[in-house]
């Protein structure tokens, strides 16, 4: 805890990306990315592989030269600086520990490059190892450490020279589930303790939602949406964002004359939308609702006025432990999933006729779907 006095004095700085592009020949890896991380913020770049998030990170670190655009750190342009002059900490996906050096020597490496004295190096390295909970393994070589411990050494090495910005490239990808959850908490703790700016890359939406102050969703080299976890999860702005961040039901709808009301395509059932919704131009649109916002109840029961409802038949009930998923066929082309938390199950079973209801406020109106999200043949 008192390590904070030594390590955390320097607080985070702002990072700004302006109109960042990266092309490899004809292939556009990153396209006009504008992004700002506030001082001390935990910003996550989330997206599938190949979406440009790692390329963006590498441009910030200096390993990849942008085709155009600007990168500013603490108000100063850093585009022209080589990586070793940027003073940015980075934790690599596969740790990138030096195998011929002990944990101590690994962590001391950045300090030696900065010509620190031997006594100071010793103090600060041990302090950093202590911070990540590895004070007792200073003289182990990387191959003698477990995956989680290697991860901690990499983290200590990235923060020991007190960078004001720390980049992390899927640092937990190689760990198993339980260890990953534990390390998520550790990383959050260190973020709070150091107070520096974190830019974190991951393809795991759970990780992104749990850890971040804000999330930037990448797709095909572009940012689809930036916002807090609940911004992007509850109020996605694109179909991609909605579907990448978790399970979602989508309904094709058509516009009506009445504002705030659409009809389900092919069914002519009205769907109430949140009051401030603007129907987009064009004939069709998609309404997205999260499975945990839907309620299933036996068909025919009275329902509260003002809610939306669709009638269907339960096709399958999947037990998930902490919850269950009820898959309902509304029509041959409309399937909805309802997620019910354990202990709050509705009394419906496979084969039952059910009414699916939800509050208008839980609908999100998005652009029309153009291509199917999951093509099973490609799996």
């Amino acid at each position: 805890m008192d390590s904070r006095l030594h390590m955390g004095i320097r607080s985070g700085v702002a990072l700004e990306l302006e109109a960042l592009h990266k092309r490899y020949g004809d292939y556009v890896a990153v396209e006009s990315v504008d992004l700002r991380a506030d001082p001390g913020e935990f910003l996550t770049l989330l997206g599938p592989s190949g979406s440009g998030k790692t390329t963006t990170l590498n441009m910030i670190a200096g390993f990849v030269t942008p085709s155009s655009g600007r990168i500013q750190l603490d108000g100063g342009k850093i585009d022209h600086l080589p990586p070793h002059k940027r003073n940015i900490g980075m934790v690599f996906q596969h740790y990138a520990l030096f195998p011929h050096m002990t944990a101590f020597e690994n962590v001391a490496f950045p300090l030696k490059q900065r010509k620190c004295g031997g006594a100071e190096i010793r103090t600060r390295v041990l302090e950093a190892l202590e911070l990540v909970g590895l004070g007792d393994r200073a003289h182990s070589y990387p191959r003698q450490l477990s995956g989680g411990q290697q991860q901690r050494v990499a983290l200590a090495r990235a923060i020991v020279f007190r960078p004001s910005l720390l980049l992390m490239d899927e640092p937990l990808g190689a760990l198993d589930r339980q260890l990953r959850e534990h390390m998520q908490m550790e990383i959050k703790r260190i973020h709070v303790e150091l107070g520096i700016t974190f830019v974190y890359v991951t393809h795991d939406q759970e990780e992104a939602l749990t850890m971040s102050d804000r999330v930037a969703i990448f797709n095909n080299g572009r940012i689809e949406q930036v916002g807090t976890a609940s911004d992007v999860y509850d109020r996605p702005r694109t179909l991609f964002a909605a579907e990448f961040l978790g399970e979602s039901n989508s309904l094709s709808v058509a516009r009506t004359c009445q504002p705030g009301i659409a009809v389900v395509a092919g069914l002519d059932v009205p769907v109430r939308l949140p009051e401030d919704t603007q129907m987009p131009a064009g004939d069709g649109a998609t309404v997205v609702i999260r499975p945990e916002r839907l309620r299933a109840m036996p068909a025919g029961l009275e329902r509260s006025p003002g809610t939306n409802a669709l009638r269907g038949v339960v096709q399958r009930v999947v037990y998930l432990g902490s919850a269950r998923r009820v898959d309902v066929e509304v029509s041959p082309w409309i399937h909805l999933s309802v997620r019910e938390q354990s202990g709050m199950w509705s009394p419906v079973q496979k084969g039952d006729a059910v009414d699916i209801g939800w509050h208008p406020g839980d609908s999100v109106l998005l652009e029309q779907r153009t291509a199917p999200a999951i093509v099973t043949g490609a799996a």
Partner: protein
Amino acid sequence: MALLAPVGLFLLAFFAYPMAKILALSFSSEASGLSLENYVWFFETSVNIKVLLRTFTTAMIVTLVCVLVGYPYAYLMTVVGTRWRALLLILALIPFWTSLMTRNLAWLALLQPSSTIATITRKLGFGELQLLGTVAGVVVAMSQILLPFMVLPMYATLRNIDRRLLAAAEGLGARPSVAFVRVYLPLSAPGVVAGSLLVFVLSLGFYLTPAIIGSPQNSLLSQLIVTQVSRVLNWGHAGAMAMVLLLVTVVLIWLASLATRRNAALTSSGERS
């Protein structure tokens, strides 16, 4: 497994028996059964010691030349694209494909006083560069012939070094040159040691190149062994010489393996996954 045991034994005999025979020869003498007289002869004859030292010096210089030429070559192979890499690999392997004889012949031709190389050095004002019949000529020819044995183990090691470690070092504040020296070089050591050992040991036993390109005045140990067998017909002397060469070689290998064992074990986790 049970079936393989006899095969293993047969092979063991196949490899070990010839060596045992030489060992026996070296301790035999014309008069009595077992004797040390061949070894006494070896160390009492001053020309033997001189040739032994010359053999080791030559081998060391050849090894050094191969390291200096082979390292950049192997490094180049790891950074170029697949097409260039294939070309470089083929070039490095050509010496394997062309017979030893052909290559020795090539060097003999190249090193003639009337050859292009000699002409160039003369024109450049280096004077008469005498290569044929000298140790220098032997070193040049042996280095080229043995280079593949240096390049291949080196390349095998360099190829497995994770280049992201260099990026990591730079991200941590090291200039590219410092990153190379502090990270890449230490990780490449096992390949350098393996290649050097191979080239050194192979140089020690070279016969053909020194016989063709060198001169009898600066012959190496292999030539002395051949002389003992084919002219003097003294098997015991030849055996003792071979055993001395073998013993020194084994000791050197053992020392080298001691020095690198720790290093090699540590490096294994530095390989790209």
